[in-house]
């Protein structure tokens, strides 16, 4: 098991605010095509899956998932599926590779590429890509697999209706400019170049 990112003896759950996915992976250069497409995918992912991001740390229930993943844990993010009586933790990693996982107590599925939020490409490879170089894996605890299947069914159905991962239209660019104007003062340009 990986060491926890917090000390269970000292830290209180959610004691730190943390930063959102958008702040960490989009706001550093919000008007670039890469980040415009990423923002589009992030919104698609959120709206289709129904998952709500957990930016606060430490989130103990997400740590229970994340500590079991021993490789490929790049671009991690924590999510909740909020139900009437309780919330189900989902954890997403988006590494620059494809992996197979066989982790006792966890189940995962691959998010369709054109709806997977990160959609990173290797900058050293210059050719135009139809698929991203990263793969997004959504993990849950085994007891929550039923809920992962529900979320995946929604994502896969939606993915069929969406353009390829890096699609950016003139409308997307205009919307990005509008959004940046509205969020003026909230966005730290170049202040945080992802993780």
């Amino acid at each position, binding site marked *: 098991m990986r060491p926890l990112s917090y000390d269970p003896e000292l830290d209180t759950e959610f004691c730190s605010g943390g930063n959102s996915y958008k702040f960490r992976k989009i706001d550093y250069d919000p008007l670039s095509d890469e980040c415009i497409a990423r923002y589009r995918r992030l919104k698609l992912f959120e709206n289709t899956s129904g998952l709500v991001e957990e930016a606060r740390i430490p989130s103990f229930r997400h740590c229970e998932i994340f500590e079991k993943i021993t490789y490929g844990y790049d671009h991690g993010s924590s999510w909740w599926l909020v139900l009437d*009586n*309780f919330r189900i933790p989902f954890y997403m990693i988006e590494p620059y590779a494809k992996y197979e996982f066989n982790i006792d107590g966890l189940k995962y599925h691959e998010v369709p590429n054109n709806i997977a939020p990160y959609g990173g490409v290797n900058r050293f490879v210059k050719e135009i890509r139809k698929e991203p170089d990263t793969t997004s894996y959504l993990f849950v*605890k085994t*007891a*929550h*697999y*039923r*809920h992962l299947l529900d979320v995946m069914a929604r994502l896969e159905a939606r993915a069929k209706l969406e353009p390829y991962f890096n699609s950016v239209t003139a409308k997307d660019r205009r919307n990005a400019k509008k959004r940046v104007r509205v969020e003026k003062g909230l966005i730290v340009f170049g202040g945080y170049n992802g993780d």
Partner: protein
Amino acid sequence: MGTDLNLKLDLKSITNITKKNQGQATSLELLHKYSITGNSTELRKQMLDDIFVLPDIALLGQWTTIYAAPNTGKTLLTLWLLKENLLSNNIDGDFVFYVNADDNFKGIVEKTELAEQWGFHMIAPNHKGFSTSQITELMIDLAETGEARGVIIILDTLKKFTDLMHKRDSSEFGIISRSFISAGGTLICLAHTNKHKNAEGKSIYSGTSDIRDDSDCAFIIDKVEGGLFQDEAAVEFVNDKARGDVADKISFSYSKKQGQSYADLVNSVKRLDDQKIGKLKSDAEFKRKLDEDQNLITAVGKSIKAGITSKAAIVKNVSEETGIAQRKIRESLINRTGEMYDLGHRWTIKIGAHNKSEYVMLDPFVSAEEINN
């Protein structure tokens, strides 16, 4: 006497002074320290809402014990009820631990598949290093570390975790369970009933009364005989002890066929409404009474066939033949007189020569009118 009391008081104050000097709290100080008066706001926040773990049967934050005879369907119905709540997202399956200590390997595999499908944790002895003796230690630990809150443990069956026939063991298990419940845990225990039923024909719990006494809620499952299709069984949960808004009675049916999978068996479970279970029970009672009267009915039939048809003569003859009390024969003669075979009538009265009443046996295939003619 007065001197003794003074001496005792002196000793007490000396003990307290010594404790104080050693930086220890006195007993009274400890009692004050343990008092939770003033913490109600905090406790209310931690209080679990009235959420059912098993609909109408077991509440979150309580200890419920379900008693039934072997093969009544307690595991089946517990799993079905759990499924109802899991699939309607009323409880989080990640906190549900079903400890299946009463199954063979095939049963464990089939039930684990269901656990994966519905989303809860299945634990079985000798798998992944678990042994039944660990459960009490785990419950103590969960209570002490504050991790018990929201955890639901289902023990199938309880006798694998404590000796129900042994008062001290049961009582110790009760203390551990209560500390787990007080810390916010939920415990559901499945246990057996006695082979022998009580005077009313109802099942009674097996073992000492400690488990039933210490539980918040206890149910006894009884099979309801008769009425359904050949491969169907009806059972009734009857509340024996309640703390909270649980049902007094609730009934289910399930269909058991040879070669069917456990998943199919679970899928065959249905709730029975009050009307249906009422009909089943009255049918069962009807059948029971008919079985009980069978000797008497046969004897009355023989008497009538032999030409003994008056009431007094039948009573006398049947009593001599069978040894059944004359009062009972008279009662049955009245109760089973009528024209509806399906309602349990077995003879009718025909007016014979000289206006004399004669008993005539009913034929299920011939109407009473035809007999009278």
